[in-house]
């Protein structure tokens, strides 16, 4: 047992608040890792009682409380790496009011949350990383200069290498150990699928490694190499899923007029206008009239976006990308179609630019061509809402006791309840449905 080192060894109990610091247990030791708190904030502790466990240079040690009193102001969390000599908590003598007692709960909670900002935070997500499309594409992997150069020269994606250096940094030996004679699977190494490619804009099947073992085997499974894009998608949508409070509004929409209009337009222009293009146009128009749906939750406030930038979800071999049609409320049908076509081509070729992926304010995801009836999408942070579109379903209805089919869509609007409430969402959806069912209404709006 190693005694905690504190400023004033002579007093063992006494009336002085004692700081708890990360001790130096060896020569030339610079940091220690906090493995485990054995006591919690607010607990009463006695001098000499084990307080926490630390690890230094492969040795684990129990640190005792330097005095008796209440453990307060914990500044470090389990897993943190702390410089030797740094204060990580304090022991207030019995009877002395803790600062925390006098504040109300929310402030205490805030203080506790701030105290969770340690010196080095291993593995925690960066709360301030607003994962817009732009930032999400660049995520730095720690690696030594030599490892970086080797990776660059051999065309190896560092995202696929596990690092053995400090903080998970990749060293040259890790590259050598990875057997880098087989570089990572990229979209260029796409396997040709036996199934014919489905029609529709920009659909590419994800690549699959041929070495995946069936689940249930006792043999180890192959870890799939992950492209940077997939990793970004995974991170972004995890955040969207865990942070954003979702609710869903569903509407069944009659699409016969919509379809008739589309065919009419396409007979008059050479540019092919797709379902997506028209949807983009109608959604844009509706968003202009319902600005709360074209907003973001940013830094605890609702920010209404000035322009309507509609992202369209596109699947690629590397996972989901959402290229953006900027200023969609100002574009004509044909302009929308042209822009959409360019973006999808770039997505298919893996050549989307940062600008293509930036500043989206609303997303449309259409899985109709995959025969999905309807689905619940995940809001794309920091946007306020996302629209999911399924396939055209021939619904049987009774009209004057006769069975007829009527083509319908199932739309699902997922909303961030911090920005949009049920009524606003419903009103937006109503406007959209009115346009889809009666497209001439588009002439009513600028």
């Amino acid at each position, binding site marked *: 047992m190693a005694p905690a080192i504190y400023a004033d060894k002579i007093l063992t109990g006494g009336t002085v608040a004692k700081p708890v610091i990360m001790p130096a247990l060896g*020569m030339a030791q610079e940091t220690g890792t906090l493995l485990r708190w054995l006591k919690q904030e607010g607990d009463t502790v006695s001098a000499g009682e084990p307080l926490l466990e630390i690890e230094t240079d492969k040795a684990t040690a129990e640190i005792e409380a330097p005095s008796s009193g209440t453990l307060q102001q914990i500044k470090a969390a389990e897993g943190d790496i702390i410089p030797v000599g740094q204060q990580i908590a304090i022991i207030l003598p019995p009877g002395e009011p803790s600062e925390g007692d006098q504040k109300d709960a929310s402030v205490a909670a805030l203080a506790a949350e701030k105290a969770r900002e340690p010196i080095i935070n291993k593995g925690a997500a960066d709360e301030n990383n607003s994962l817009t499309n732009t930032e999400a594409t660049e995520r730095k992997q720690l690696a*030594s200069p030599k490892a970086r150069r080797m990776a660059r020269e051999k065309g190896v994606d560092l995202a696929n290498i596990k690092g053995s250096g400090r903080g998970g940094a990749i060293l040259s030996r890790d590259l050598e150990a990875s057997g880098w004679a087989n570089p990572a699977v990229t979209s260029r190494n796409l396997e040709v699928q036996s199934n014919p490619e489905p029609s529709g804009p920009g659909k590419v099947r994800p690549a699959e490694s041929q070495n995946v073992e069936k689940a249930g085997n006792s043999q180890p499974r192959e870890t799939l190499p992950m492209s940077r894009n997939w990793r970004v998608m995974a991170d972004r949508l995890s955040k969207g899923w865990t942070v954003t409070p979702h609710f869903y509004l569903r509407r069944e929409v009659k699409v016969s007029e919509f379809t008739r209009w589309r065919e009419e337009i396409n007979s008059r222009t050479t540019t092919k206008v797709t379902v997506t293009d028209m949807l983009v146009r109608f959604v844009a128009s509706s968003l202009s009239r319902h600005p709360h749906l074209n907003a973001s939750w940013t830094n605890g406030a609702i920010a209404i976006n000035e322009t309507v930038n509609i992202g369209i979800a596109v699947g690629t071999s590397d996972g989901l990308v959402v290229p953006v049609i900027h200023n969609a409320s100002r574009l004509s049908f044909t302009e929308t179609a042209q822009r959409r076509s360019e973006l999808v081509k770039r997505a298919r070729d893996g050549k989307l630019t940062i600008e293509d992926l930036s500043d989206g304010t609303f997303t449309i995801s259409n899985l109709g061509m995959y025969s999905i009836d309807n689905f619940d999408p995940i809001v794309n942070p920091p946007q306020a809402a996302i629209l999911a579109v399924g396939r055209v379903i021939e619904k049987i209805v009774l009209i004057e006791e006769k069975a007829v089919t009527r083509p319908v869509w199932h739309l699902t609007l997922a909303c961030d309840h911090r920005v949009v409430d049920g009524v606003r969402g419903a009103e937006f959806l109503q406007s959209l449905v009115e346009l889809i069912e009666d497209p001439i209404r588009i002439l009513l709006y600028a």
Partner: protein
Amino acid sequence: MSTLELSAPVETRELTFGQAIYEALAEEMRRDERVVVLGEDVAEAGTVFKVLSGLVDEFGTKRVIDTPISEPGFTGIGVGAAMTGLRPVIDIMFGDFLTLVMDQLVNQAAKTHYMSGGKLKVPMVLRTTLGATRRSAAQHSQSLQALVSHIPGLKVVLPSTPYDAKGLLKTAIRDDNPVVFMEDKMNYQQKGHVPAEEYILPFGVADIKRAGNDVTVVATSSMVTVALAAANLLAADGISAEIIDPRTTVPLDSATLISSAKKTGRAVVIDEGHRSYGVTAEIAATIAEHAFYYLDAPVLRFGAMDVPIPFSPVLEDLTVPTPEQVAAGVRKLCSGN
């Protein structure tokens, strides 16, 4: 091939570091009658370290001159004499006293050739000492090579072995520039092989004292033996250290250091000056700059602690890098953590 192992055909004898210095000086004084020695207690006493004992017997008091305790004065006289036809070798007993002669070195000797547009020269050698652990306290224990290496116009020599010392001192005396020649005062009794035949060693050529593959250790002067001892400790752990002795910080053989760092991917630098703002910082920066894309780990520095050297032996011994400290640091570096 390291200069530590001179090959057989050259006839060598064992000399101490101090004897090697003496030989170099005596040979040059025989060769060129313009070489004179000025300093405190250099004649009869042969200096407090006894390195020059006997020199005055051969060359007389006209060429081996005891001065008053006037470091700025006799160093300045050395500068003036060097400008007008002599080749003085000034003896400054303790490197700590470089502070006293800074104007002579920095503003006069270092700049005269440049300020005169190349017309005037200062072919002067200033011999002084470095090294702690002699229990001589703060004002007699410093290693101030960083101060003089920083000044354009000076050359700075840091020999670590008798072989290096003799060859480099002869070159220093023949050089037409002001040269600060620093001797490890703790090392005067160290023995080494020195050829019987005359030889000189060039400035700006580093010496690989020990070949290795896993880490480059650059060490100067008094730290070369520390580095070699650390290398032995590391060898037991299977870490092969390459020890390079730059021998001169100005001019610096950066090419050898860089190519070694590129080979091993890891580098540490050891010098007995204080760790901060010292020779190690310059060498580390040079390596980091030119070998950056070959480095698998950060470049580390080892130096004396950033404290005035204390008197009490237990404290003094803490302030200077030891083989154990160096080995521990290198082990950590190689582990990737």
